[in-house]
């Protein structure tokens, strides 16, 4: 079954993204900690899109689609038409580097890469498509 949410490029909407992801995942047999981590990963990637892809332009929006294949896989699809950001080509910094530099950012995409099992990025017509996959087993 597919679940779709349209999200304005506004950081204030991150809470509703988290509620949406959580409510979709709660209807399946997925552990509480795994739900928390998946909500976090999607929150991180949406925050990245909101801040960098359209520079927090609240008049525009992007789409999040969730498809769950029970006991097998959860697929998250993010479709946006902002500045393309290919997470698969992004070289995540080491934690030590972040600390030494006193950086506030950098950990979000480390989390996304460590939580998800597979991440793909593509361009279709004028859209950027980010496809994140989490394998689930019970």
């Amino acid at each position, binding site marked *: 079954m597919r679940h779709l949410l349209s999200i304005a490029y506004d950081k204030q909407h991150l809470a509703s993204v988290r509620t949406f992801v959580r409510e979709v995942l709660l209807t399946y047999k997925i552990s509480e900690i795994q739900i928390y981590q998946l909500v976090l990963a999607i929150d991180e990637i949406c*925050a990245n899109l909101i801040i960098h892809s359209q520079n927090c332009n609240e008049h525009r929006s992007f789409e999040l689609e969730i498809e769950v294949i029970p006991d097998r896989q959860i697929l998250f699809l993010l479709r946006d038409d902002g500045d393309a950001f290919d997470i698969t080509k992004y070289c995540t910094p080491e934690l030590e580097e972040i600390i030494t530099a006193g950086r506030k950012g950098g950990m979000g995409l480390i989390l996304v890469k460590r939580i998800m099992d597979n991440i793909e990025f593509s361009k279709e017509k004028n859209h950027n498509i980010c496809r994140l996959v989490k394998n689930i087993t019970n």
Partner: protein
Amino acid sequence: MAEAYCELVIEGSIDASSSIHLENSLEQVILEGNSVLLINMSGLTYISSAGLGAFISKLDIINQRDIQMIFFQLSPAVASVFEILGLGDLLDIVADKETAIGKIK
């Protein structure tokens, strides 16, 4: 003699839109000259990298000023995020407030 410490109580959700409040509070307690910071996470329901970044970006100054920062009462879900990032090796994290007070130097 009672140990002197400053307890920072974190509550609710901390994400990219609210992390600035945590950052400001943390900066304030550092500037006040506290030498021991106990971070009470019992009321924290959610933290994203923006919230973690508020702590991580201050680690250098905390170490330079020889401030002892101890986190306690993380929920299992929040603890799992610290674990994914390997923060358990860098931060002092304990089960409860009593244990945190017992670690004050």
